[in-house]
């Protein structure tokens, strides 16, 4: 464990030193055009008093298996046409696992202020932070409120391959409306929380995703600093892979083809933000519903989650910001596989996570920052739910999952 920790620290220092040299190399000339290059990276460490969290071995000493990085290139082809792409890689315990991805790659044409088009692999606009949830340098908190932006389930809503139409419509004294509509194929990573959760049932997903469409409408209100909005997304998800029936169904120890498919799946999100000087206050509510057939259509799974949070952050000076949030997550589910019964009341720890968080952020130099964050979590929300991960996985909690968890999260990062 000590050797692993030393390797992380050494690796982090070497990376930081190397990148310090490159941090200012941001433009490349391509004929008469300029290509901008930007990048970011973070290294985190999590320690919990009880339960291993987010697929990491966080109890006992803690875990530094919490790293991500991205680099992008963009070019303004014409004044209203921009192209670009970003590569991204991460490790979050057993998730991500250093499988680099094309994060986004698109062409963006702004015809008029009220009408623009994006095509390619596009980050999905859903609530305040879905499309920027990986941009740790842009956020106060080391972990966004997990009731709405769960880091282990980010792949489920992160991006789509397709097209967006978007624009801004000014409404004179009524403020301004910004809209986004999209349709595409939501190809999810097989290294996310949901595929990982399914392995405990002997299910190994190798392809996940499907048709997705939705929209977002936000209103910059006439009251200065006040923004409200609503997002809605529907998905038609089909996951395929292999099943070992001996694990969950008492069948033979062989691998057979497996599929599951959603019959109805949607996400609704409502949000508001208020900024005044150095103060920012956010509030969001997300409702997720999934009705799908599992085990090749043999059984049904109905899962509903509702999550909301209230956060506040204050920039004290150029180098110090602090904030906090209360994150409330609850779920209800029915799975028709024999033996799967949810707890009757949401007050049971297996059906909720109530998280109280405080954060301090230090911007030490132009490109570098560090965050220290404390979490007090009541409930584990996934003790018995076989089909929806909530941060606590039985694979890394073989002694069982206790009701409450306190966590310390430290996360350092850079961007250029």
């Amino acid at each position, binding site marked *: 464990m000590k050797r692993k920790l030393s390797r992380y620290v050494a690796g982090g220092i070497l990376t930081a030193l190397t990148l310090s040299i490159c941090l200012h190399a*941001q433009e490349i000339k391509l004929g008469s055009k300029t290509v*901008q290059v*930007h990048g*970011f990276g973070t290294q985190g460490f999590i320690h919990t008093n009880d339960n291993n969290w987010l697929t990491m071995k966080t109890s006992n000493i803690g875990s530094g298996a919490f790293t991500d990085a*991205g680099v*992008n290139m*963009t070019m*303004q082809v014409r*004044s*209203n046409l*921009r192209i*670009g792409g*970003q590569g991204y890689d991460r490790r979050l315990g057993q998730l991500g696992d250093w499988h680099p991805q094309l994060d*986004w790659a*698109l062409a*963006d044409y*702004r015809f*008029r*202020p009220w009408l623009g088009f*994006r095509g390619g692999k*596009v*980050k999905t606009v859903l609530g305040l932070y879905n*499309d*920027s949830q*990986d*941009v740790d*340098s*842009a*956020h106060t908190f080391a972990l966004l409120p997990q009731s709405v932006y769960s880091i282990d389930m980010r792949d489920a809503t992160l991006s789509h391959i397709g097209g967006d139409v978007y624009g*801004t419509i*000014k409404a004179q004294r009524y403020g*301004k409306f*910004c809209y986004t509509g999209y349709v595409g194929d939501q190809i999810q990573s097989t290294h996310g929380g949901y595929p990982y959760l399914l392995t405990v049932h002997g299910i190994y997903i190798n392809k996940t995703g499907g048709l997705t469409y939705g929209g977002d409408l936000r209103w910059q209100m006439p009251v*200065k*600093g006040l923004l409200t909005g609503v997002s809605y997304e529907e998905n038609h998800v089909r996951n395929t892979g292999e099943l070992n029936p001996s694990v969950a169904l008492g069948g033979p120890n062989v691998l057979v083809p497996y599929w599951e498919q959603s019959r109805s799946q949607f996400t609704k999100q409502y949000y508001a933000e208020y*900024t005044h*000087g*150095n103060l*920012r206050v956010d509030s969001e509510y997300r409702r997720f519903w999934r009705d799908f057939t599992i085990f090749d259509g043999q059984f049904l799974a109905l899962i509903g989650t509702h999550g909301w949070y209230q956060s506040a952050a204050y*920039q004290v000076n*150029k180098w110090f*910001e602090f904030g906090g949030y209360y994150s409330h997550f609850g779920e209800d589910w029915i799975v028709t596989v024999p033996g799967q019964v949810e707890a009757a009341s949401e007050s049971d720890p297996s059906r909720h996570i109530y998280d109280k968080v405080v954060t301090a952020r230090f*911007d030490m130099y132009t490109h570098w920052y560090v965050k220290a964050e404390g979490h007090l979590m009541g409930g584990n929300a996934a003790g018995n739910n076989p089909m929806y991960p909530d941060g606590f996985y039985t694979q890394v909690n073989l002694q069982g999952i206790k009701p409450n968890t306190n966590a310390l999260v430290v996360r350092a990062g850079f*961007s250029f």
Partner: protein
Amino acid sequence: MKELSCSILLLAAASIVAVHAQAQVIVIANPGVKASEISKSDLRDVFTGNATSLPGGGNVVPILLKAGTVHEEFLQVYIGKNDTAYRAGWRSLVFSGQASMPKSMDGDAAVVEFVGHNAGALGYIGKATPHDGVKVLSIK
């Protein structure tokens, strides 16, 4: 009643001071930019990445200062954010694929030089800075 009158007078005095503070920063544009004035709302939209053109036509490109009192005043008066929150907003757009990062210049002279030689460029400088070769946009 006396206290209310005093409060009103103090508020008025503060407003006058604020107006004078605003006047220390001017917005400049490349001579090819059609507009001769710009609303606070449009200025904010351009410098926060929400707009790439001005009413009446013409794409524009914001040019920033890296730091300094002119930069701080511009952010306070026209954007309503501090520098950290402002840069975070741009990073959010750049790393989610929604915008390119605007250029940041070391000082007013560099802003004037760049704006004067690049079509569509829009920047801000101190009022006392020489600004030959660019046009000044009035704020409405």
